[in-house]
């Protein structure tokens, strides 16, 4: 079944749903401010393309920056944890507290501290907080999962801590890290949008703001358009990271072996 049908079925279903939607809105004369027809949403893409493109770019930039920052800080802290049990014992509880505190509740505080004049930095910090923890937690687990016998073998041949980290622990943690990246990529997007909601209108200019603003003016088709862009962005991030995972793991990792093999 892994052939063109894999794509044909979902695409056909999507087209059918859109068709029924278009027909139902026209037939039951559903008001535009409740549910716009797909054609009206498409029209919004054309009419509002300048605003949507700017908003997409703003949100996209924050998501990518937050994700890269989460990746760098998460891996760096995980390496530090793997080197020193004391550092881990001291810092890990705070990382958990940061993770479990609802980001919506944290957002107003961060925004006040950073200031409305640097709202992009506030959004970046909030998205980073959400995206950071899976990377830290999974990479720490991965670094700790190195085969004890292999560590002994490295020691037998006089390897330094650095060599053990670089040649054994980091490659072994790669599947854990890549799994975490797929989760964090999605979370960075959620964090960025939630932070924009918390920031309110008039300051941030990303897709979250576009949705709030369009909702206030009952431009439901613009809300749908922004929502569609967010979905596409989330799916694109997921596919890109899945492709990266495949590229790095398919030669050797069990997860990449097809069952037919």
């Amino acid at each position, binding site marked *: 079944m892994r052939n063109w049908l894999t794509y044909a079925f979902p695409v056909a279903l999507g087209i059918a749903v859109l068709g029924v939607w278009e027909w139902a809105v026209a037939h039951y004369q559903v008001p535009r401010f409740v549910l716009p027809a797909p054609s009206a949403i498409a029209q919004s893409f054309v009419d509002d393309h300048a605003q949507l493109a700017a908003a997409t770019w703003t949100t996209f930039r924050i998501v990518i920056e937050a994700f890269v920052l989460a990746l760098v800080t998460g891996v760096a802290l995980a390496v530090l944890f793997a080197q020193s049990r004391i550092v881990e014992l001291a810092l890990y509880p705070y990382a958990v507290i940061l993770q479990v505190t609802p980001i919506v509740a944290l957002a107003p505080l961060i925004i006040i501290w950073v200031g409305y004049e640097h709202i992009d930095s506030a959004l970046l910090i909030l998205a980073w907080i959400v995206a950071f923890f899976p990377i830290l937690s999974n990479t720490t687990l991965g670094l700790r999962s190195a085969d004890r016998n292999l560590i*002994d*073998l490295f020691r*037998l041949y006089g390897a330094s801590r650095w060599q053990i980290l670089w040649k054994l622990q980091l490659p072994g943690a790669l599947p854990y890290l890549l799994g975490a990246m797929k989760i964090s990529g999605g979370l960075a997007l959620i964090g960025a949008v939630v932070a924009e909601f918390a920031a309110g209108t008039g300051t941030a200019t990303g897709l979250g703001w576009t949705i709030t603003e369009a909702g206030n003016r009952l431009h439901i088709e613009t809300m749908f358009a922004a929502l569609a862009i967010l979905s596409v962005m989330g799916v694109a991030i997921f596919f890109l990271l899945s492709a990266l995972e495949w590229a790095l793991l398919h030669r*050797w*990792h069990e997860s990449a072996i097809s069952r037919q093999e």
Partner: protein
Amino acid sequence: MALISLRGVSKTFDSGTQAIAALDLDVRAGEFLSLVGPSGCGKSTALRILADLIAPTTGSVTWPGGKPEIGFVFQEPTLMPWRTALDNARLPLELKGIARGDAEVRSRQALTRVGLGEFEKAYPRELSGGMKMRVSIARAIAAEPKLLLMDEPFAALDELTRQSLNDDLLKLAREDGITVIFVTHSVYESAYLSDRVVVMTPRPGRVTADIAIAQPTERSAGYRLTSQFIDAAGKISAALGNAMAA
């Protein structure tokens, strides 16, 4: 002259478990010595002490002729799945800082010697259990050790694979003049391979029998049917029985 001399070596872990009690043992250069005993009698602990991976609680380990290059083979192949067979075999040379080109030539030779010359680009997941163990042995001999420590290396393999690896191991050890300390709980495997079998008691382990075996240099499948082999296996088996009863 002894290669290794253990005197009163004991090991008690932090958990309070005493793995070895007062182990006295001399290992001669060039011999094939098997450590036989029930599970948990501290055989693996003894190997780790010899490799200097853990320190004994009491007693001394001395190397009268100086400490030689050591190779270690575990019960599992213990390969890095992200590295090819060649890159796995190259690891000891790489960690010793030997230039990559030279290291590749030497690890390629090691792979050829264990019969895996054709598979240097294969990843561990593409190899059978026996082939993975061969890569593990190639890695151990790549750095040209004079002492090979083996911790039940063939326990997880099927009988045919195990016998063929036994023969290959004997050949490698003889060609390179390697001293082998081989941990096993198989009486027959120790009887086939060893010049000397040391039987250990259940935990805490100590030596209860030291059996010398006069082996023919050339051994083959037929050797397992000779009275000489059966006598040796009988002696080891009896000593093991006494050890368990003690």
